[in-house]
């Protein structure tokens, strides 16, 4: 069987990914191994997410591709161009509200996701235990037995030493009361959005050859201690006030700090589309 004329991947690769996706949803947070084909995009640049998108897309879908919250940073542009060329009939969009499939690196859109949408994540490190155990065979055993003691010890030692868990992004969370996941390098800010979300979240780690998932309406709880609760990024100024976006004035979004020439910084929304939406899409025709 030659390569499918839609979606770049050959029929065997697509079926393997389909099977892995279903089992990933059936065992939320468990990392399903899969063969992971080479793509014409380099490993580390989003091949896992890309393979998932290419496997699920249909003509008529509207895809949004973001990298660090931006639709037209170079990597997002490159991936989107490849997807659109490989999938005739798939429409590229930037507005979160219009997208049916969102492929992302490092962010979840600020706008609440709607039923019918699919979130697809590019994942560099699928295993939260990697920070305490380098050997994969041992990590598989730990997941199998639900043995997360060493991860808890690491968090505890962080709190003792730093008064804070020294994990900013890739913050570990327990899914459906069982498996602990690495939610990919989304900031802490985005982690609560996974909890009882309206949509499925599909994670693809191409280089590490794993697929995992969080179904909709599923409990996702960041690891935390009773006396040291999980906290998201604060974005406070010197007076302790919440910073606002210099562009749309939002004080409830994840911010980019942009250092200015001559000192000082400008803060603005990281999620380009959310910021534009709040401003009523000033650049739209």
């Amino acid at each position, binding site marked *: 069987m030659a390569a499918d004329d839609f979606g770049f991947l050959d029929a065997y690769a697509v*079926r393997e990914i389909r*099977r892995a996706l279903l089992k990933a949803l*059936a065992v939320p947070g468990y990392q399903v191994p899969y063969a992971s084909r080479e793509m014409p995009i380099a490993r580390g640049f989003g091949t896992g997410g890309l393979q998932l998108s290419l496997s*699920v897309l249909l003509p008529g879908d509207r895809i949004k591709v973001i990298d660090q919250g931006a639709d037209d940073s170079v990597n997002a542009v490159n991936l989107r161009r490849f997807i659109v060329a490989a999938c005739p009939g798939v429409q590229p969009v930037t507005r979160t509200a219009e997208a049916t499939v969102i492929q992302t690196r490092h962010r979840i859109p600020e706008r609440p996701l709607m039923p019918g949408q699919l979130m697809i994540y590019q994942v560099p490190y699928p295993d939260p235990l990697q920070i305490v155990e380098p050997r994969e065979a041992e990590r598989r055993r730990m997941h199998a037995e639900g043995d997360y003691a060493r991860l808890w010890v690491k968090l505890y030692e962080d709190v003792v030493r730093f008064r804070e868990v020294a994990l900013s992004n890739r913050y570990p969370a327990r899914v*459906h009361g069982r498996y602990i996941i690495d939610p990919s390098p989304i900031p802490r800010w985005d982690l609560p959005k996974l909890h009882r979300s309206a949509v499925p979240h599909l994670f693809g780690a191409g280089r590490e050859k794993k697929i995992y998932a969080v*179904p909709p309406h599923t409990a996702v709880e960041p690891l935390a201690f009773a006396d040291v609760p999980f906290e998201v990024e604060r974005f406070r100024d010197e007076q302790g006030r919440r910073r606002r976006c210099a562009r749309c004035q939002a004080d409830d979004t994840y911010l980019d700090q942009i250092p200015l020439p001559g000192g000082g910084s400008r803060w603005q929304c990281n999620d380009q589309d959310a910021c534009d939406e709040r401003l009523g899409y000033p650049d739209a025709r």
Partner: protein
Amino acid sequence: MIAIDHPWRSDGQRQVFRRLLAAWAEPGSVADIAPWCGGAHASLAVLACLCDAATSFCDADQLLSPTDRSRLAARPAPAGEAAFILADAARPPAWVPERGSLLAPERGATIVLRCQSLGEGAVVALRGPGIAERAALAVSGLHPAWWTARACWCAYPLGVDFVFCDATRLACVPRTTTVGGEES
């Protein structure tokens, strides 16, 4: 050149899978896949979008024609070992499927159950991942032994995943779903 019809066409299989994915992510929801079945039973369309030579398959109640079975290209296997099992929902299971292991829970079988009709018949309440609070699934022509068998087979994260198919539609009950008994 032999023309390829649904459910063997890759474009149709993509359509079926996307609906299967959505239904699987939201247990109990019913998806219509009639346009891509090509007149075949929906259960065959589901198997066609998932199976190939890399998978094992058991046609437990001999529901497929030999032609369709060979076209699936999956390795035949006994029900206790197959990754995919097709069975008649009206007959109680006479076998124990693969439930996976703690190291590989994904090896738990996918059981495709051919039933009379979805949306009619006895209703069960569903709770669990993918369900906001509670969902209801009505399946007619389902032998009640399937629910008791499922309760024995599923001990999370081990277990099996059900796909119910009537002639043109499908609904899923993965292993995470709590089935709360019949409702009136």
